[in-house]
């Protein structure tokens, strides 16, 4: 008998088909905001190197409504990025002591702990 396998096309809206796919896409999209924010910081550094007035103008520009909206969105996506990647970390770092495989909880907690310590360090440096 002759065969005629039928190939189904994946719809363009596949990422809306399941909640988990949509949150995966949100995680993927988050890197655009992380990248844009890093770029913004680089621009800020550049303006700082140009002098006090230039840096002042840069800080003023940050107050614009557009910039505030961007910052709010970047914050949301940075949180999505952090929380979703931290929760996946145990998959990449399996823990086994002797015969026993450990649960991923400590790996996730360690990530949060390092995050808090590093953030506190940055804030401390910023105050000095």
């Amino acid at each position, binding site marked *: *008998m*002759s*065969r*005629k*396998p*039928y*190939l*189904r096309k*994946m719809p363009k809206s*596949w*990422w809306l*088909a*399941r909640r*988990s*796919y949509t949150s*995966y896409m949100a995680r*993927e999209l988050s890197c655009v905001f992380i990248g844009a924010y890093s770029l913004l910081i680089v621009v800020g550094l550049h303006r700082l190197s140009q002098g006090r007035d230039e840096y002042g103008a840069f800080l003023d520009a940050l107050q614009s409504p557009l910039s505030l909206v961007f910052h709010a969105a970047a914050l949301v996506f940075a949180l999505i990025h952090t929380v979703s990647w931290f929760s*996946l970390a*145990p*998959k*990449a770092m*399996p823990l*086994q002591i*002797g*015969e*026993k*495989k450990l649960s991923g909880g400590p790996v996730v907690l360690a990530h949060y702990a390092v995050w808090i310590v590093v953030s506190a360090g940055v804030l401390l440096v910023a105050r000095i």
Partner: protein
Amino acid sequence: MTEQTLQVEILRYRPETDQDPAFQTYTVPYRDDWVVLDALNHIKDNIDRTLSYRWSCHMAVCGSCGMMINGEPKLSCHAFLRDYYPNKVRVEPLANFPIERDLVAVTDDFMEKLESVKPYVIPQQERAVDEGPHLQTPAQLNAFKQYTMCINCLLCYAACPQYGLTPDFVGPAALALAHRYNLDTRDAGREQRQEIAASNEGVWDCTFVGECSQACPKSVDPAAAIQQTKIASTIDWYKALLNPWGKR
């Protein structure tokens, strides 16, 4: 008392007559201890002999009855009607694979990929029988045991949008099995497997959607295997960079 019934909507495709697949609805008796496979068997035995699907063990062991049930990849012998009743159950062949006929998917692509990662122990040196068994401690076994549980049911491939979008991707189960043998203390074949596993179509086509591990009925966690292979391959790359004369 009238008998309780349930509607089952099945995607049918008969290559000799059908241009495209289409849904056909059957009404089956509802029993709360029935799984979707029981409903299919009821249809085949009593309503429509032309319905095609694969199954064998009816106990989540053989891996042949994977289907999309209400859009989710599931073993049909493991999906109870009571979880859907009184709503309709929609049954389709595994996503991301071509349809051979009705609920039968063409899985040749996976078989080739599985073969390409050499899913068997490749010893450093052949061991003679009188040398006795190659012993392994329980700790050494536990390092890879979960990956030995794979029943090749392909639910993970049906769950993986990356496989759907990039058909060359070696995919979750094959990469998990490559990892399983790489972790085995009796094995020395990692370098051979890395040719495929560490290629673009190997672990690097994975974008860590993670759905493979959610779909897996055997808790194999292929997503974990793939991420661990990525890390090990990255370490290889740095080692080669820092020590280009060293053995890779």
